[in-house]
């Protein structure tokens, strides 16, 4: 699928200091019935975001005008549970381009990169610093630099580097996807398949 290239992102951030935010919360199962990939942002965090009568819950961070930005900062083990890529679609569709946490669930991390969201894993200490900085100043800006693999709190200059697979980095910075790569090695795949015992 096509997504915007990711290089350097400078933005304020939305804090969600909760551990084990599972993909059922990010997008509840009842919103997975579409056969096209659109409109998922409206239902991002649906049950944390809205009351039963569809009025917004005032105390949920996405409904609080104090916080905004293209970076979502979550607690440890963000994206656990179901493999539904719809969770990543909803985050992207809402307008986030980057999710920061001290720990990501595996499938969510893969799904994120595949749809153009950069998951940035920071140390628990740096995560606490980010939460504290946002609490002190909700407009505080973060810079996520993919080519340099760094995340920086601009107000203080405090920075941490993050890991990303070179190949995935190349894809994200160029807007490529894995399927283009794999299609280029079709005859190699066919030969391999012929030799399988089942």
């Amino acid at each position: 699928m096509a997504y915007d290239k990711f290089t350097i992102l400078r933005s304020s951030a939305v804090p969600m200091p909760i551990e084990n935010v599972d993909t059922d919360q990010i997008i509840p199962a009842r919103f997975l019935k579409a056969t096209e990939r659109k409109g998922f942002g409206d239902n991002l965090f649906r049950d944390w975001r809205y009351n039963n009568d569809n009025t917004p819950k005032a105390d949920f961070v996405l409904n609080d005008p104090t916080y905004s930005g293209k970076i979502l900062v979550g607690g440890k083990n963000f994206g656990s549970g179901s493999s539904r890529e719809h969770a990543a679609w909803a985050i992207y569709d809402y307008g986030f381009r980057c999710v920061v946490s001290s720990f990501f669930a595996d499938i969510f991390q893969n799904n994120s990169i595949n749809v153009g969201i950069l998951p940035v894993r920071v140390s628990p200490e740096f995560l606490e610093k980010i939460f504290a900085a946002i609490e002190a100043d909700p407009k505080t800006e973060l810079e996520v630099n993919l080519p340099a693999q760094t995340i920086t709190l601009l107000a203080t200059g405090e920075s941490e580097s993050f890991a990303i697979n070179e190949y995935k980095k190349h894809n994200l910075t160029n807007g490529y996807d894995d399927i283009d790569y794999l299609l280029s090695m079709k005859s190699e795949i066919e030969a391999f398949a012929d030799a399988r015992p089942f």
Partner: protein
Amino acid sequence: MSTPKTLFDKVWDAHVIRQVKDGPDVLFIDRHFIHEVTSPVAFLGLEGRGAPVLFSGRTFATADHNTPTLNQHLPVADPMSANQLAALERNAAKYNISHWGLGHIKNGIVHVVGPENGITLPGMTIVCGDSHTSTHGAFGAIAFGIGTSEVEMVLATQCIMQPKPKKMRITVNGKTGKGVLPKDVILYIISQTTASGATGYFVEYAGEVFENMTMEGRMTVCNMTIEMGARGGMIAPDQTTLDYLKGRELSPKGEQWDKLVPYWETLKTDEGATFDLDLTFDAADIEPQITYGTNPGLGTGVTHQIPAAEDVKDGSASYKKSLQYMGFAENESMIGKPVDFVFLGSCTNGRIEDFRAFASIVKGRQKADNITAWLVPGSHVVEKQIKDEGILDILTQAGFELRQPGCSACLAMNEDKVPAGKYAVSTSNRNFEGRQGPGARTLLASPLVAAAAAVTGVVTDPRILIDNE
């Protein structure tokens, strides 16, 4: 002598077509399961690229997540569900993919019908757009869940690009006690490792408990391995595996079988092979389990109290939020907690052994008046076994009804939703907020614990009911 390898290494390495420099491995996929929810957008992508399905014979489609569990002969009432089911049927026909749709004799939950029909074999790589694909690891396969972009990738190329995970071995020695089922073994392990304790790892299960476990029990264990964050779990194939597979409809036959058996016998971890992490538990420590929180790691022995915040590894704020959602408090006893719903089913516990276990408790007893019970077989084959073995009669005499196969109240994408605020003892795999319906409160447990709740109306230690027989 060559370097000792783990079971995981042997299967993974045999599927690597290319190692991308500083990148993931290009891994060949032997079998791909698809269902109606995570495949439509993948097919749209394929169409957009103008790419064909490279090997349509390696993909199998079944309808399960959305399907009703009553009146399956009638048109599906929810138009959006009907639309997804129709899209799957249309795409399967267009690309010549085997499709077991609603009403098909082989229809059922993807992770139940795959093994049941001999599609899942030792030494395979298997993927599906569903995190519980790890189930198939019970056969000594590398099986894991993928996202929709990856579903498109496998349709177009039969490959996936993955960095090789780290390896973990979980050994459980000894013998499990009375009333302890495979579900309790895995719930116990997850409670000890937490919901993220195995993230980045692929798990091999070893030790006496798994060696003595049935294939269905092994599937339950591997199914829930994803709930501690692992990519998947696997168990070395042995005689139990071969006995299960022999004669299944799509299992290899004759000469092909005879050729594969010696290969399958090599699929075990070599003496001296090393793991990145080795955990060992004692079976004697495992009691019938129940969860009290909103992730599968927040569970304990059914006779225990809910732990205090300082004794759990999740952050205190998240833990308190979790208990608040459940309407529970620290240090409360789980025994005697009122229950409204009981769900027996899902890809975790919708197999015949689960129904046998459930029936062993309800036999000669009556369903408690306050309980709504949804008993949902994992497939039509299981449904038939329930009838043929006389289990349906036991259930009916006790006041229960049997529904038709599907994922049902595991993720509540169909009509089977637990109402807000109500408590469900569920044999499924997740107790997340709203998992079984907005506001629903889920207590994960084994079929025996579910049966004990179904006949008493409250959380009950099933061992007491076994004692009385």
